[in-house]
């Protein structure tokens, strides 16, 4: 089974898709993770991003990812 982690690169890709307001690209990235889920995937983060995307709240997704990336750097 191929593994896709919710790593920095994936989060950056989602963030870029949201900056471009490209919902189809963001959905595809979410789909990618849903199909090839890492066992330790952060369900809270995924659920939150999914909810924001459902509402087309791109800025909220970007803010959430920036916050998560900043937390990882600490």
């Amino acid at each position, binding site marked *: 089974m191929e593994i896709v982690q919710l790593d920095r690169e994936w989060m950056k890709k989602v963030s870029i898709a949201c900056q*471009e307001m490209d*919902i189809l690209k963001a959905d595809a990235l979410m789909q990618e993770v849903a199909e090839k889920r890492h066992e330790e995937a952060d369900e809270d983060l995924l659920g939150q991003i999914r909810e924001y995307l459902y*509402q087309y709240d791109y800025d909220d997704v970007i803010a959430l990812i920036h916050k998560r990336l900043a937390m990882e750097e600490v």
Partner: protein
Amino acid sequence: MKSILVVDDAITNLKFVESVLKDSYKLILVKSGEKALQYLETNQVDLILLDLLMPDLDGLQVYERIQTMEQARKIPVIILTANADVENEIRCLKLGVADFIRKPFVPEVMKNRIDRTLQLEELTNKLSEKIKEKTAQVEQLTFEIISTIASMIEARDSYTKGN
């Protein structure tokens, strides 16, 4: 793939448009006029679907703001409207919107109106290019004719005894 910016504050409408058009176009779906204007400041699209009734900036205000944006003013706009908005439809037509799509949306009607508007836009652009090209040719020919006449007037030979 042509791109369409869809602006509607109702998520159900955005979801509907997404499901109908996502296989045929690149879609940018936003919930507010502000977000749409923000997108248009740095991006180009081929068509805008704009809801008329929205909180904060309504469709007409967004349309008027788009008309002040040099890079966006030529993008055709189709207004999404409820049946009863006849007065607003007249206002929009006077302002120059390309077309209307009435709610509740019918997928085939939506697709056809979009296709027709995009085709018309493409033909208009081609025609403009052709007119520019032909205008340049006419200017060149005019210059050549004037030059030739000037040369003839300036001609000096023995037959005309220097006149």
